[in-house]
């Protein structure tokens, strides 16, 4: 446009004003088009970002929601006295040693009396999970008066059957390409005609530890591991982080040394989390010989990782407390420490808590440093304390994601859903705290 302004002929051809000239109108149109385009690009980027979020969430939820139900098969079980406890001793030890696997097999044979060949029988037994025998055993041990009775027991189905019932197995495929052959399909169809196969809410998923069998695996162990780890992290990182923030913000003299601490804190906030894992491996495991796979060590590593977050948030909270409050406290004779502890700190506490919760949420979702300190282990037992071997929820996701069984895909997604629900919960708590206690000075 500047070129047209300098052109002397322009004014002669267009006596009124060059602003209304045809060239200028074209130029304006071009400029407005590029304005529209720019705007659309901005809106488009936001839409793309949100679309990614939507795809991520729908694919996880779509894959995972079915894991909250588990196919069960009804077995007519005869807890025969002669087989389980021939001497009628009622002794749990005798009952515990009885052949419950045989009991399950007998019930399956009774349900399908026409299955004769050994191979078919073996395939038939595979309809139910190997956990069925343990379930019956636990029932008989808990309530010895069941022995001698016949009753219907719902036992978990094998993961392949579970996948079939959930529609993940394509029946139209040729038999050789399917994980489930025609005979098994016929059995399952017969079971569903009888109403002996149903989907129940998957309690096992929330009460069991890890297992090689998808239908017996659960997240309880990983959840407890994460819980112990977060407890260690919280107990250590909150006081230390707040203490460091108070010192840096209120007491530290303005000199090189304080600057050095600040630079350190800011850099630690940007160090990749896996490097903290290397630190944990070299220092806590190799030097101090703390146990591998223990939530205590995980908690220590995550403490070091979350400290910068907490320090930075707590400093911001202290900074937002107006100086007049400090001066008022000092003016009526409080010592500097009293001023900080009794006036500035309580007013900054909501901000500090919010920062801490956000740090905890990050720690809950972190898995890379935990791989370094051996928390990536197959742990069947639910840990009883911070020194027992354990995994954490995100690590469990990583472990299951590697498993080949189709049923683990669904369970991985379900574990992710639980993890995301926990994260949304903690973040919502942080937002709530901020809304409720935030003060504008």
């Amino acid at each position, binding site marked *: 446009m500047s070129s047209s302004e300098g052109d002397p002929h322009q004014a002669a051809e267009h006596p009124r004003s060059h602003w209304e000239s045809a060239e200028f109108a074209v130029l304006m149109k071009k*400029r407005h088009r*590029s*304005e529209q385009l*720019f*705007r659309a690009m*901005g*809106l*488009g*980027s*936001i839409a793309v*970002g*949100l679309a990614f979020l939507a*795809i*991520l969430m729908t*694919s996880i939820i779509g894959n995972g929601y079915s894991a909250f139900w588990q196919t069960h098969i009804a077995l007519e079980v005869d807890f025969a006295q002669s087989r389980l406890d021939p001497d009628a001793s009622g002794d749990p030890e005798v009952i515990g040693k009885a052949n419950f696997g045989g009991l399950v097999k007998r019930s399956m044979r009774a349900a399908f009396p026409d299955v004769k060949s050994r191979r078919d029988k073996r395939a038939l037994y595979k309809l139910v999970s190997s956990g069925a025998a343990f379930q019956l055993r636990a029932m008989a041990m808990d309530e010895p008066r069941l022995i001698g009775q016949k009753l219907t027991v719902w036992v978990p189905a094998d993961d392949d059957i579970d996948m079939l019932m959930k529609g993940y197995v394509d029946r139209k495929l040729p038999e050789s390409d399917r994980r489930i052959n025609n005979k098994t399909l016929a059995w399952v169809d017969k079971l569903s005609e009888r109403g002996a196969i149903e989907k129940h809410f998957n309690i096992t998923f929330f009460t069991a530890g890890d297992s090689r069998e998808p239908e017996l695996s659960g997240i309880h162990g990983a959840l407890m591991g994460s819980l112990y780890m977060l407890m260690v992290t919280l107990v250590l990182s909150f*006081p230390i982080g707040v*203490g*460091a923030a108070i*010192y840096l913000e209120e*007491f*530290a003299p303005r000199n090189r040394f304080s600057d050095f*601490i600040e630079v*350190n*804190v*800011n*850099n*630690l906030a*940007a*160090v*990749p*989390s*896996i*490097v903290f894992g*290397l*630190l944990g*491996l*070299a220092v806590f495991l*190799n030097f*101090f010989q*703390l146990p591998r796979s223990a939530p205590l060590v995980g908690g220590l590593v995550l403490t070091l990782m979350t*400290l910068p977050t907490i*320090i930075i948030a707590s400093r911001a909270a202290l900074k937002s407390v107006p100086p007049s409050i400090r001066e008022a406290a000092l003016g009526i004779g409080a*010592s500097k*420490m009293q001023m900080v*502890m009794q006036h500035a700190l309580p007013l900054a506490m909501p901000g500090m808590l919010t920062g801490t919760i956000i740090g905890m949420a990050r720690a809950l*979702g972190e898995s*890379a440093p935990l*791989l*370094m300190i051996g928390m*990536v282990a197959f742990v069947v037992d639910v840990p009883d*304390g911070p020194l027992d071997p354990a995994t954490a929820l*995100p690590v469990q*996701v*990583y472990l299951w*994601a590697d498993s080949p069984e189709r049923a683990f895909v669904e369970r*991985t*997604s379900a574990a*992710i859903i639980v993890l995301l629900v926990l*994260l949304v919960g903690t*973040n919502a708590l942080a937002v709530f705290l901020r809304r409720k206690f935030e003060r504008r000075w």
Partner: protein
Amino acid sequence: MTPFSLIVTLLALSSAAYWFGRRRAIASVGPSRPTSVLHSRPTYHGTLMALWCALPALVVVSLWLLFEAHIITGLVVNALPESLQALPPERLGLLLNDVRNVAAGNTFGGTPEPAISAAAVHYNALYARSADMLTGAALSIAVLGALWLRQRIDVQLRARNHVESAITIFLVASSLLAIVTTVGIVLSVLFEAARFFESVPPLDFLFGLEWSPQTAIREDQVGSTGAFGAVPLFAGTLLISFIAMVVAVPIGLMSAIYLAEYATPRLRNTAKPLLEILAGVPTVVYGFFAALVVAPQIRGFGQSLGLEVSSESALAAGLVMGVMIIPFVSSLSDDAITAVPQGLRDGAYGLGATRSETIRQVVIPAALPGIVGGVLLAVSRAIGETMIVVMAAGLSANLTANPLQAVTTVTVQIVTLLVGDQEFDSPKTLAAFALGLVLFVVTLLLNVIALHVVRRYREQYE
């Protein structure tokens, strides 16, 4: 007593000490005078006494627990028969593991060797004795500390000043932890990396073109000579990070511009938190998503075009990593854009510029240092990101720039080398620390440069 119950007992003792200290302070005034003659409020006397009760004992307990394992292992090794002590370190480590297992009661069905079971008995006995000694020492230190202070409580005692200096020491120590952590990272990584460089020259490591970290168990094994040239890893890391930035920078920057300059407050208040959810999703979730959804899609799409696409293509990992970084770029750019004063925009509008011209020619140049700093921080995050690449990128160290092939990254190799059983003197394990050193140095440099860019080139308004 277990360490946990010991600590609980100490805390209970110290609460009792608080109460006694307070009472003692009030009693020391005497009935004829008001309590205001005390130098400090009685609570401070109580607190001081509680500190004297708990702190020295807790210090002893924590030092004891930190070094207990070290010392007891040393004692057990010294008590082993000569022939076993002479074993090479890694065999000795395995033997000690057996001893620990037997001591914990896990015999795994077999009968352990007599030397090992003797050592296990010795080990358990040492632990039992250590626990008893610790309990005795900690409790007596606690009681002695409290009694010593109780004796000193009188009207003159400057309890407040003592308590305040104790708190100050805690505050200083907390902030020093940041330095200790940095030093710890540097030392632990440097120390192990130095051991690695004893067997592999640093130049071979940094500039070698072949990576196959296999070391021989036997001398005559095939493929026994490991190659530790890390260039393929660096190239893979850069390739994936580059793809991630190609996704994240335009989308992040444009959404930041739209949210800061065009969006109505309502759109801004919904879209911004929603975008930030992307940053809060754990990386392991992205990794699963990349491996389960994105990689097969890309592979299928590529094959429909007749392209050879690896199922662990760099493209899938980079794409998903880019999505993860979008909110990072957008929130840092948003901060930089909103920090540009309104006056500059008004000036541009006054000269007749459209909004997009104002943004492109006035706002972005003014915000550029902040944006560049943010992008550099995002690059450092992409380089250090672990879970996505571990789950979605491959293990094969290809030196290629083709995003459809599988590449491996520094972080993937660190994880593969260190997960599982390790012996701590093979170059294979130590290589992970050398890679960690490179990772730490590079991310540190990027952060320092980012901060420098922001500080040095920032336009100062008013």
